[in-house]
Structure formats: C-alpha cells, structure tokens
C-alpha cells in the first residue's frame, strides 16, 4: 500500500503535465475561418523525425528538439468576428496549468488590443518537461501544448528567449507583464 502511494506520488507530475484540451475547442473549427489542428503522439513524432534531414539546419534543429518529446498538440483558430470562442474553455485549460508542475513564466495582457498571451513551463525540478502557450486574441485563439524534455537551447530555437534574460524554473525570475 505504501509502495503504491509512493508510485502514485512519483507518477503524478508526469500525468499532471499532460493537459486535457477542452472539448469545446473542436467545435470552434466550424466557426473559424482558418484552423490548425495538430495532434502528434510520441510514435508519430518518431516517424516524423525519421524524415527530417540532418543536412538542412532547420530540420536538424527540429530533429534534435523532437528527440526528447512525447507529444505535440496545437489548436489554432482564426475568426471573422471577435468573441466567437468561449472564455470558459480557457478557464478550464488554465485550471490545469497550476504549480507545482506548471509555472507561468510569461503573461501579456493588452486591454487596448484585447490580446492575451501566456507561456507556461512544466518542470520536474531539473529540466523543462512541458510547454504550454495560450494566445487569446479577439479574433484568434491558439493553444500549443508540448510534452517532453525541452532543453533551454531548444526553447531559444523555438521562439527566442521572450525578451527576458534567463529562464529560472521555480518562479524567482518570472516575467509577468500587463500592458494597459
């Protein structure tokens, strides 16, 4: 019984870093003018990796990044009119992105443009084990969820360093900005 409890505690972060995408997201595709829907588990990532060239610098970088990944999920919707998605879907998603597994490292909110962007990182204490990005603009909603080992250099390759000098897992150097 005690072993089972320890096993459960040990497995909890691994399970917790896997997000459940709100079921309402799939219905948004009907309203959206443009949709990106990517669902890739580890086996599909490995298959894709086989077809990435080592000679092409971009593909070689992607191959290196994919080596440690277990899943890549992207949902992106562009709408003709503002307010076509439900905020409750995002609330459900944000509720899963909580410490101790997830840390919000960037939060950008612009009241002027109505843009709202957040970046979350999951960590096991030593390394980054997940990345989640939520970009909620009035006419666009994008959710990116990457599971697996992500090295800092891979993160830089993915999108720069967000203009912040250094990532520090644990929250002491978090950047959380608001634009009024």
């Amino acid at each position: 019984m005690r072993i089972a409890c320890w096993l459960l505690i040990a497995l909890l972060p691994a399970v917790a870093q896997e997000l459940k995408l709100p079921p309402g997201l799939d219905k948004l595709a009907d309203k959206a003018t443009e949709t990106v829907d990517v669902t890739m588990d580890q086996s599909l990532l490995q298959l894709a990796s086989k077809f990435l060239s080592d000679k092409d610098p971009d593909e070689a970088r992607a191959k290196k990044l994919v080596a440690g990944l277990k899943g890549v999920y992207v949902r992106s919707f562009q709408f003709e009119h503002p307010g076509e998605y439900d905020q409750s879907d995002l609330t459900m998603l944000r509720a899963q992105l909580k410490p101790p597994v997830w840390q919000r490292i960037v939060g950008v909110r612009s009241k002027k443009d109505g843009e709202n962007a957040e970046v979350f990182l999951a960590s096991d204490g030593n390394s980054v084990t997940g990345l989640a990005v939520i970009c909620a603009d009035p006419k666009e909603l994008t959710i990116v969820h990457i599971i697996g080992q992500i090295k800092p250099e891979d993160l830089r390759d993915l999108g720069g360093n967000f203009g912040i000098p250094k990532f520090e897992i644990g929250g002491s150097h978090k950047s959380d900005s608001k634009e009024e």
Partner: protein
Amino acid sequence: MDDLERQLDLECHLKDALTRKQAPDWFEAKVLAAAARETSAPAGFWQRLMAGARLRWASAVLASAAVLASGLAWQHERAVRERTEGEAAKAQLQLALKVTRVKLRKIGQKLDQMERN
C-alpha cells in the same frame, strides 16, 4: 589394260552394291516388334522418379518465386505507405513548430516593446 580392268571391276562392285535387294522376312517383324516394345513399355523407375522430381522442383521454384514476388511487392507497398505517412507527419510537425515559433516570437516582441515603453 590394267586400268581398264580395274575400272570395270569397280563398276561391277558399284552395280552390285546399288542393286535393290529384298529385305529378309525377319527384318520387318523385328522392326515392328522393337517399335511396339518402345511405345508400350512402361518408363523405368529412375526415369519416372526423375520426371516427378523435376515437376516437384519446378513447382517449388514457381512457388518460391511467387512468395518472393509478393513479399517484395508488400515490402514496396509498405515502404511507400510509410514514406507517405512520414512525410505527412513531418509536415504536421513543421506546421506545429511554425505556429509555436510565430506565437512565442510575437510574445517576445510584445515584451520587448513593453520594455522599451
């Protein structure tokens, strides 16, 4: 004179040799018997065995060739399918990374802009 005698002698020999002669009575019977024996006689054991073995070998070679050909066709089809799936997976991955890059860069630029302001 000697030459003339020899020539006559040769002609006599030739004439004698080329004269049509009736075959002996036993000859026809012997030929017919031999022919009948050859058509009706069953093939020998080794002959039959070799004929059977050849047939079996031919069948085995044909079957092996068919198995090999279908195996190669299956492997080719599998390779083509895997390639198609792999290329599709690669395209999906590249799209996902592109979306991620674009969004993260946009957030980075926003942060830079806010820092400048």
